[in-house]
Structures are given as structure tokens and as C-alpha cells.
């Protein structure tokens, strides 16, 4: 079963189209990256999933059911614009937010005690939020998002504005929650985190979905014929050995060896490359070079833009 299916979602605001026939599928147990430049429509889609706004057309299914009011407690949502009541005490506030998600007060208190102990923040219970540092407040925000044990977690730019220690903490907590069975949607334009923790992604650009799939499949599909070669010998000898059908993208020098990245011309195979250089240098290892998500992101978005113009 899929955690989430969004089918042909279209959303128009007074002045512009936010989502144009967008469909995504989030498999259960996945960490799903919702990618796209600022203003692409990520937040609009997330708000529709959270029932903050409704789509003009299209439908959302959550764990096989049509999205409805009761699903509010199935989802944990950490918006990009997140905050807390400054004048309210930490514990009181966490209880309030948990009750709004449908937990009973007693249940919420027990769970909060657990989490506060895990995060070693029990001493903050009676502090006002305005007395906390930003990093401390971020921990509280995270706890209140996951407290009601949502089956689907939606985090909008979860790592922006968090300090590195909290980023690490939250990353490991997310992995733990995933292992316990939660499905996670991360909306971000920070590609570094995508490669590390997402297994599926969808790329949205200018209100349209332009790419979707498993992270490794996508990287594989976008791979060009590029190889990283480590060898012993001189860089000049290596460069001279390449004919015009090979493009030398970069060269590097290590302690005992040299390295180079080579792109193959049309119809060339790895064998051709090896044949060309094998008599001139001593090969140590050869690796297929996969494009980074960042490259794919930029490439897809720019192509998309060229295509539009």
C-alpha cells in the first residue's frame, strides 16, 4: 500500500497557478524527497495534503483512503514557517498542540515525558518559550510534530535554520521513526540531504512535476558515460592517449597516483576507453560516475526552463 497518492492535483490562487496536474506516489515506509526551487508549488501541495487548503481538482489518498478530516491525526506536519507561542510555557504549549491533534491530556503528558527525557530537555517544562534559544525551540517543535505518532510525517525544509547538532539529531530520529514504520515526506531544496536520506523523490518546477522515482534509479537514468579512472603514470601520457572521442573532464593528483574523469563520446564503450589508455599508464581502478542529485536538479530545472521559452 502507498502511504500517499496524489492524483492530478490542480490548485489555482487568485493570481497564479500553484499546481498544474501534479501526481505523486509515496510508498509506505519511504523517505520521500519533494524537491523544487522556491515557489515551485511544494508548500501548496503540502498544504493540500494537510487539508489547510483544498485542491481545485484531483484527489488525495492516504493509506488507500480518500483524504478526510480524521486524517489530521495521521499526519505530523512541521511547516517551513514554524514557531511557538513565545509567552506560553513549554510543557503547557506542547500539551495544547498535542490535544489539538486529538490526543488526550494524559496520553500527551506521558508521551511528552518520554520524549523530553530522550532529548534531555525535561528541565524546560516550566520555562517560557521566549527564554529558550532557537535550537532549543527547534527541538520542541520537532517533538510536538512527532508526538502523536503519525504514520505520515511531512517536514517542510526541516534542516533550514536548524543548527548542525540538531540537524544530526533530527536526521537520526527520522531514520528511527522510519524504521518503526513511519513514512516521511521531506520538502527541501538542500540536495545534500536528499542523497543521504531519501529513497524516493519528486521534482516540481513551475507548478508541474518534472521528475519522480527512486533516487538510485534516477541517478542511474541521468548517468552519462562518465568514468573516474585512477592510474599510475604521467598525466600528459594519459591525456595524449585519449582521442577526440573522449573528453577529459578533470584531472587530479594524489600521493602515489593520478586520477581523471573522462566522458565517452557517442557510441563509445568503456572497453574503448580502456583500450586507449591501457598501454600508456598503469590502471588502478575505474568507477562509473553517477550524477549528484544536485546536478540532476539543476539540469532538469534548466532544461525545463529552456523548454518553456
Amino acid at each position, binding site marked *: 500500500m502507498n502511504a500517499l497518492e496524489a492524483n492530478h492535483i490542480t490548485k489555482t*490562487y*487568485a*493570481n497564479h497557478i500553484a499546481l498544474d496536474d501534479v501526481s505523486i506516489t509515496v510508498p509506505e515506509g519511504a523517505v520521500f524527497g519533494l524537491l523544487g526551487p522556491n515557489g515551485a508549488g511544494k508548500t501548496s501541495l503540502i*498544504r493540500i495534503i*494537510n*487539508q*489547510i*487548503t*483544498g485542491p481545485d481538482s484531483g484527489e488525495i489518498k492516504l493509506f488507500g483512503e480518500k483524504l478526510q478530516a480524521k486524517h*489530521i491525526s495521521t*499526519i505530523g*506536519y*512541521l*511547516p517551513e*514557517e*514554524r*514557531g*511557538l*507561542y*513565545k*509567552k*506560553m510555557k513549554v510543557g503547557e504549549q506542547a500539551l*495544547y*498542540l498535542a*490535544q*489539538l*491533534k*486529538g490526543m488526550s491530556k494524559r496520553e500527551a503528558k506521558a508521551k511528552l515525558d518520554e520524549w523530553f527525557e530522550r532529548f534531555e530537555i525535561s528541565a524546560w517544562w516550566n520555562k517560557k518559550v521566549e527564554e529558550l534559544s532557537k535550537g532549543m525551540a527547534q527541538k520542541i*517543535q520537532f517533538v*510536538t510534530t512527532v508526538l502523536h505518532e503519525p504514520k505520515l510525517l511531512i517536514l517542510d525544509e526541516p534542516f533550514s535554520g536548524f543548527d548542525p547538532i540538531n540537524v544530526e539529531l533530527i536526521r537520526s530520529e527520522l531514520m528511527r521513526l522510519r524504521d518503526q514504520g513511519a513514512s516521511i515526506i521531506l520538502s527541501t531544496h538542500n540536495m545534500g540531504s536528499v542523497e543521504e536520506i531519501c529513497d524516493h523523490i519528486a521534482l516540481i518546477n513551475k507548478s508541474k512535476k518534472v521528475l519522480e522515482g527512486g533516487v538510485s534509479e534516477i541517478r542511474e537514468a541521468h548517468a552519462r558515460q562518465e568514468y573516474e579512472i585512477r592510474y599510475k603514470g604521467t598525466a600528459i601520457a594519459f591525456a595524449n592517449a585519449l582521442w577526440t572521442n573522449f573528453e577529459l573532464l578533470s584531472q587530479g593528483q594524489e600521493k602515489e597516483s593520478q586520477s581523471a574523469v573522462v566522458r565517452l563520446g557517442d557510441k563509445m564503450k568503456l572497453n574503448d576507453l580502456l583500450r586507449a589508455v591501457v598501454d600508456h599508464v598503469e590502471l588502478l581502478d575505474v568507477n562509473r560516475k553517477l550524477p549528484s542529485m544536485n546536478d540532476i536538479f539543476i539540469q532538469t530545472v534548466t532544461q525545463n526552463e529552456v523548454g518553456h521559452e
Partner: protein
Amino acid sequence: MSKIGLVIGREYSSRVRKKSFIIMTILGPLLFAGIIAAAIWVSVADNSEHEVLVVDYAGMLSYVNPESGRIEPSYPEIFKGDENLFFHFTDKLPSDSAFINSPYTLMLEFDDSILAAKKAHLYYKDLPSAQVSMRITGALENGIERVKVRENDQIDYSTYKRLKTSLSLAKFDINNKEDASMDQEKGIVGMMLAVIIFFFIFLYGSQVMRGVIEEKSNRIVEVIVSSIKPFQLMMGKIIGIGLVGLTQFLIWILFSILIFTAAGMIFESGGFDSVAAVDGLRSGGQTPIDFETFLQQQDGFSLLVSINWPLILFMFFIYFIGGYLLYGSLFASIGAAVDSETDTQQFLMPVMLPLFFSYFVAIMSVSNPEGFAAKLFSFIPLSSPIIMMIRTPLNSTSVWELLISVAILFATAVFFVWLAGRIYRTGILMYGKKPSYREIWKWIKFNS
């Protein structure tokens, strides 16, 4: 607990625990007591001399002295007057011109229908101060009570309480009899209520606005609207803050009742007993009195006792709820439309203007509660809560007028709440540029 209940609970409890609320709740009544005292002092401070001609057709309070042949009061100790108030009795009404040319400044006229109608006429050349008219009323009330006692053989304290007479004076300018003059004292109460309802609507309405801005600028609003509907959040806030206002007002009323009761007990424990009161009344001598009567005889306080407080407080609650819902939802829309309080100016103007305007109409209505402006603005929901606070104590509204005015007010309030809901749900998630009125209009039309 339902989710909207949770929001109401948070809004309410976070506010009633604030120091500012506690201080205001304690200082408020003192402040208003001060205002009342000042208003009364201004209206009663009066040193002008008055010669009152009492026209007693039926000879209820006067008789012809066989020795002098002059008409004299039956109870001279009541009508003995003092250095600036003198009573003269007659049994014939002089012509207007004779009165105007006479040395008398005031003319009090009544016949035996006064027992049933409880109303006497007072004609004046210049409007007497509240103090003077209250002393005249007081003397007349005392006299009438004596008459009633004379007609009753058996008097116990309950009869005594029943005999206690509350009269009203219909005042007329002798030069312009058509124009019944204002009921000054009750006008003061009306002004006070108008000020209170004005401030309640304004203060608590702008608290709604500040609360909405706080949630927006704290960036917590999106977290919350992922759990409940924006409309529930808005209504919870409006209701919660409104309940804070009602709580404050209730505490003030309880305080007042407590103070009044305590003062009465202290007063009556110092010598008042009902038997002596009845005896005193029968013998025509010095009458010990209970606290309420005492207050009635004190300058300025009689108006506080003579007013129909339960009705007026009830109307206050109704109009506060209606007016607050109406203005509160306008304030909520403003809060949703802007990012910070500094941006509110442009939108506050159109909300504040009708509020201030109503206040000025209210001030003018005191002297002319039946006038066209007063009547018209009693039906316009933006002004009716304030205007009606003036008109209700003056008894210048009919039941129908009240019902229609309240119905229009609540219908409009519901409409404004609906309108505010539409602005709110879009506005709270919009950051950045301050919207224009045209954009806000789009938010209203836009279907979520």
C-alpha cells in the same frame, strides 16, 4: 474537549492570568467610581438660589392658615428649605407670563393623580442642576409618603417599604413647553455605559487583532491550522477573548454589589431599625431610614438607586456581545491581513471611524434621545451598541425598537464573522507584501 473548546480555553486562561487583566479588574471599578463622582460633582455643584412655587391644587401637602389666611405647607419640616432653596405654596396655576415675570425660578405642579401616576411637572426658566431637582423630588417624595401614612392605620415595615415613593419630575422650559428637557441624571449613567461599551469593544476587539498578528508573526499559525480549521481558530480566539471581557465586567458587577451590600450593612447596623422607621414616619418626626432611602436622599446618589439596573445590564451584555462580535471580526480580519502591528494603520482607520463617530452621535443623543439621528443610528449595527447605551437608561426606546435593533446587530455580526472567516483563512498564510483592498476582496470571493 472539542478542538474549538481547546482554543477558547487557551485564549481565555492565558489572558485572565495576565497581570494587566488582574490590575485592570481591580482598578477598573475605582476608576469608574472616580468618573461617576466627578460627573456627579460637576452636575450637582450649584450655588444658585431657587424660589420654588409649589402648585398644590388638591391641598395634599398644604392648608390655609386660618390666622394669616395664607397657604402654608402641612409638613414645614420637609419644605423648610435652606439658604438657596425656598418653597412657596399656592393652589392656583399662574399664567405663563405671570410666572415668567414673578421672582420664582421654578414651578412644581401636581394634583392628587400623583399618587397613581408618580409624576409631577416642573417648569423652569433656566434648567436647574441635578442637585436642585433631586432635592425637590426628595422633598415631594417625603411629603407624599406622609400623606400615604396618614391614610393607613396599621403600618409595619413591609407596608412602609411599599409606601416609600419614587417620583419622577417631567421638566419643561416655561418658554418652550413643547421641548421636554433631558433627564440629566440618567443621561450621565448612559454616557458612562456608552464609554464602557466603547472601550470594551475597542480594547477587546484590538486584542483579537493583536492575537491574530502574534500567531502570524510567531509563525505558529500554520502548525495550528494543520490541526484545526482556520475558522475554528478564529472563532475560538474571538469567543475566548470575549469571555475575558465578560468575566471582567461580571467581576465589576459583583464588586459593586458587594460594596453596596457591605456599605448598607454598616450603615444600617449603626442605629437603623424598622420599628423606629415606621414610628418616625407616623409621628412626622425625624425618620431613621434604611440605606437605600439614605442614598436616595444624598445628592447624586439617587440616580444610581432609581435606575432599572437589571434591564440596563442585560442590554449592556446583549449589545456588548453583538458589537464585540461585529467589531472583533473586523479586527481579526485586519490582523490576518498584515504581518505586524505597524502595518495595521491603514486598515484600522475604516474600523475606528464608525466607532468614534457612534460615540459622538451618542454624546449628542443625550440631549435628544428621540431625535432623528439617535433613532437612525440605533438601527445601524456599527453604532447601535453605543447609542442604545444612552437611550436605554432614558427609557426612550420601545420594545420593538430594541428588538429590531438587536436583530439587525446580530444578523450583521454573523455576516461580518463569515466575511472575516474568508479573509482570515487566506490572510494568515500570506507573508510579505501588505495586501491592497482589491486583494482582500479577491480573498473574500475566492473559494478555498
